[in-house]
């Protein structure tokens, strides 16, 4: 056993017992299937992005592997918010005391309606706004536009009393501009990055591999890109940051903390190794002890201090 260090962290009003949580859309819970670890150890749990209404999602194939990466074109399928509230939330709330709900929508109005509905629901610690799902070819991507971002965040902020996390897209000129727009809109926390637009072509069929033709790249391949964006945003915007992108072990997680992230989300790596988040929590604790720190807060942003 290793000595205890203080792993708890405050993202504004969102208090987490440790900085490690799953990334939206790469984590789900069912009554029957138990993961090979106790989900109570996680800093929080996050639902797949939910829309107001039921969504079918994209036709198969929805995923394909690239070199050290995963390309997905899910199209955010889902049963809609009412189903989430009735069926999924109870399972998530049983699994962890801190439940974050990820919401999506076409346009600010839909986001606001969702926020209003969820504001009435008990046991939601925060919302994460997926402004950046790059999978649906026709979807306008709010996260690429400063005005739309500010407007959407503002509308949600009016409607929802607890903290809101704004998830940023990497497919932009300058992510710090969008981050500032989110801050103007009233963002409490920023999370980045979502997937990078990507695709694969099957040289036998001579057609795109994915049913949706284009998708989003995640996994170890994108980690250096995500880290740079977290670094940039941490330098320019004074909001707590959740780092996301290719994090596959505690070393990766620590890089993001040193770059200025106060917490991290794990996506693709947890699809491959379901107990990776447990390993990351333990690895961070060990690192803090070895390096002689007594709390996680001490290392946040150290790389540019």
């Amino acid at each position, binding site marked *: 056993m290793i000595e205890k260090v203080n792993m708890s962290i405050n993202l504004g009003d969102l208090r987490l017992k440790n900085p490690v949580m799953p990334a939206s859309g790469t984590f789900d819970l069912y009554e029957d299937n138990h993961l090979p670890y106790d989900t109570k150890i996680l800093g929080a749990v996050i639902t797949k992005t939910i829309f107001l209404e039921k969504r079918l999602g994209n*036709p198969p194939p*929805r995923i394909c592997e690239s070199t050290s990466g995963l390309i997905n074109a899910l199209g955010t399928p889902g049963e809609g918010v009412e189903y989430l509230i009735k069926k999924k939330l109870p399972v998530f709330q049983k699994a962890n005391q801190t439940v974050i709900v990820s919401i999506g929508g076409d346009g600010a109005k839909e986001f606001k309606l969702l926020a209003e509905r969820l504001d009435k629901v008990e046991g939601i610690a925060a919302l994460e706004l997926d402004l950046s799902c790059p999978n649906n070819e026709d979807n306008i991507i709010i996260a690429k536009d400063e005005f739309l971002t500010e407007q959407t965040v503002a509308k949600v902020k009016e409607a929802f009393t607890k903290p809101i996390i704004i998830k940023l897209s990497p497919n932009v000129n300058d992510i710090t501009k969008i981050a500032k727009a989110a801050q103007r809109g009233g963002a409490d926390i920023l999370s980045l990055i979502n997937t990078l637009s990507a695709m694969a072509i099957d040289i036998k069929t001579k057609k795109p591999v994915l049913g949706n033709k284009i998708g989003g790249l995640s996994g170890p391949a994108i980690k250096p890109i995500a880290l740079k964006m977290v670094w940039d945003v941490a330098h320019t915007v004074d909001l707590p940051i959740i780092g996301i992108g290719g994090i596959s072990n505690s070393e990766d997680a620590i890089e993001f903390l040193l770059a200025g992230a106060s917490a991290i989300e794990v996506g693709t790596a947890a699809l491959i190794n379901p107990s990776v988040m447990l390993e990351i929590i333990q690895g961070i604790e060990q690192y803090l002890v070895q390096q002689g720190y007594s709390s996680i807060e001490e290392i946040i942003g150290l790389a540019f201090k």
Partner: protein
Amino acid sequence: MYQVDAKVINQTEVIENHFILKIFAPEIVKKAIPGQFVMLSAWSQRDPLLRRPFTFNRIFCKEGSFELLYKKVGKGTEIMSNLKTSDQVSLLGPLGNGIKFTQNMKRIAIVSRGIGVAPMLAIVDSAKEKGIEVYAYLSAATENLLLRKEEIKEKAKLIYITTDDASLGAGGKVTDFLAQTLIDTKMDAVYTCGSKRLKNHIESLKETYGFKAWVILEEHMACGIGACKGCICRAKKANNHQDRYLLVCKDGPVFPVDEVEV
């Protein structure tokens, strides 16, 4: 579901590019049901990235071991093909819904093509154990691709075989043989894997003879545990005519033939 590091007992290349890999994993075996699968990784670096799904070809409860029957088709199976006795692999399993024999079942048929035979031997073994009669209908491009033929023959009441080149068996469609049998023999359940054509034939025979029929599907998988929603197949349109997708890893991989489109 367990996540374990398991030791390779042994591996043999049965015919070119086709391997039987025997693995010692008692926890997984204790819960394993034919039709279920494991997500396997034999690589510690990030290329390849994802685990690979493989169905139980044979389950040895007493030994606490199981066998996979797989074909070398790419990066992952290439690496797997170099596995030697006492090498380690990482496993998630058992995953998905396996087959369920009901009390009153007396006779079942298995219908497969090529590597689609992979889940069938496990089904045959467990049927045999429960005293259920098995009729086996196997097809392949050539005789040597009729994998596990001997093991199945040994346990099956009857075995029908066809090869495209007619090198063995009569040639023609295995489902025609099944149709023959059905005229005077009642099947309680039919299981198929490995061919869209077979699945559709069996579906139409089901209309006529009203047996239970199941198909075991494959789809590209990132997680195998219902987390990524990547492994979908299209559900047959219900009366409300609404499109619906099912998760092969979570709702399957064993599906009633008339509930899914392939």
